[in-house]
């Protein structure tokens, strides 16, 4: 079967979760295609982890429905094709690294010869080969995260769900995670990345969703998102009020402060038009600097600065 004819990796509709009075996830509708690297962004407490746990059947939704790889959420058989790295990466720390991965191979119902081959491969991949015989109790936070990642990839999954995969890692570890995600994408694996480390998402993801208070505020291709929106800083003299007011046809977000003017645009092609408008209006333009928004700017713009509290 080609990727196009396969059911989407994730498809959820109006998923909702209440814990007593508290609404953790209000109304989540989402579709992630096969082979995508999808970033799930939001401030702390936005309901990201609850949403991920519902995908995996760890938490039963209050309402709504969904499918993972074409099977209902929590379906036992499909979970054999899913890999998961939980947020707090707490594992049975009295096992050695090799024993830990072998155990999870058994839980994936992998044949013994496959497990015996895959376990050293994955230890090598995450850079833990020298610590294969060491108990997880002696592992640092970063090492635990690496072994957790190995565990999530053990079964050669079609869908990998990573909940904050880089939060405990140093820069070397983060690069490793990035490389692994890239590698997974090349193999056609779908990656669902739950993160608030925006620089990571910016580098790795194809598409992102912004979530706040349990609702998706916006879903977008990362490329168009970042390339599409830009701010323009202008330094000019003779900025008359009626000229500034006239800029509203290109931007709803114009701020003027003496010689300085800043405005947000949705398209780069508006730049020469604005320049001509200013010059023909008698304004002396000294500088006109377009700047693309970073994902962080976008995040603040979409989610707000209150952190969802």
């Amino acid at each position: 079967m080609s990727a196009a004819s396969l059911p989407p990796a994730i498809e959820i509709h109006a998923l909702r979760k209440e814990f007593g009075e508290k609404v953790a996830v209000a109304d989540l509708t989402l579709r992630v295609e096969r082979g995508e690297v999808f970033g799930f962004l939001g401030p702390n407490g936005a309901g990201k982890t609850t949403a991920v746990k519902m995908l995996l059947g760890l938490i039963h939704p209050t309402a709504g429905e969904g499918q993972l790889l074409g099977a209902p959420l929590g379906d036992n058989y499909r979970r054999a094709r899913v890999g998961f790295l939980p947020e707090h990466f707490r594992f049975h720390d009295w096992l050695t690294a090799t024993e830990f991965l072998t155990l999870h191979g058994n839980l994936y119902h992998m044949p013994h010869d496959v497990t015996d081959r895959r376990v050293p491969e994955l230890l090598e991949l995450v850079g833990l080969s020298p610590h294969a015989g060491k108990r997880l109790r002696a592992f640092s936070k970063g090492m635990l995260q690496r072994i957790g990642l190995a565990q999530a990839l053990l079964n050669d999954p079609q869908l990998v769900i990573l909940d904050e995969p880089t939060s405990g890692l140093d820069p070397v570890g983060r690069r490793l995670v990035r490389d692994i995600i890239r590698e997974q994408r090349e193999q056609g694996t779908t990656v669902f990345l739950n993160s608030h480390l925006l620089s990571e998402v910016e580098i790795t993801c194809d598409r992102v969703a912004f979530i706040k208070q349990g609702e998706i505020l916006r879903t977008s291709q990362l490329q168009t998102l970042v390339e599409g929106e830009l701010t323009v800083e202008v330094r000019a003299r003779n900025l008359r009020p009626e000229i500034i007011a006239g800029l509203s046809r290109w931007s709803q977000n114009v701020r003027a402060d003496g010689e300085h003017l800043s405005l947000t645009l949705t398209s780069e092609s508006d730049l020469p038009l604005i320049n001509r408008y200013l010059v023909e209006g008698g304004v002396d333009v000294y500088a006109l600097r377009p700047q693309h928004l970073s994902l962080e700017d976008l995040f603040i713009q979409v989610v707000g600065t209150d952190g969802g509290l």
Partner: protein
Amino acid sequence: MTTLVIARLTFREAARRKILLAALLLGIVFLTIYGFGFHYVNVELNRSGSSPGPLERNEIRNFLLMAGLYVVNFLTVMMAVLTSVDTLSGEIASGTIHTLVSKPLRRWEIVLGKWLGFTGMLTLYLLLMAGGVIGLVYLISGYSAPHTSQGFVLMWLNGVLLLGVSLFGGAMFSTLANGVMVFGLYGIAFLGGWIEQIGSFIQNQTAVNIGIISSLIIPSEALWKRAAFEMESPLVRALGFSPFSAPTVPSPVMVGYAVVYAIVALILAIWQFSRRDL
């Protein structure tokens, strides 16, 4: 299959955490002390000529055997509860459960696997301890109590029953709340047993009824009383009173109730663990 993987994991955890070693070493210490104690009493019994007579000698041997098994019964219950009290609630609280439950398995397989692992440990422990006591008595004095296999099964059932309750509590509450609940229930059964025993001795039906009600709340003490009844000497049985059993012997119906209780506790543990959010 997955159930067996979890059962093995449970066993291995107990081994790695030195629980098995501690239980084994202290068990050996217990049996050593018991063996020496029994040996010297037995030497004294054999030396003292015709008084006490051979029949009374065996009464004393039986009394000592029951005292040993009484402690073994208590230790087995402790072992069943202490090993399992933290197993579900602890894994839920720490988050180690997340990597397990997100695997292609059903939640009942986790609970059943843990139950199997703990039941295996419990069985080995009881074989060592009860088998040790019964065996030492036989080796030293040649005395063997009646119906020891029935007694063994009843003591085993007692451990399994409390294991089921402890697993259910672990799926429902925090570790601490679970421990308070299980030992609270055990305390009720213990107290109820004594009230029943004394009530029966002074022929007060209300006190006996209180004992029966406490056995219905949790039939663990009733199981021990039935086990003691099975293994005690015919004379004590005829007299109908000893520190370890009551004149009102729990009926086979109560034993059947305990079997159902143990099974229902396990089913409830599975049900509660399957429905809860993790």
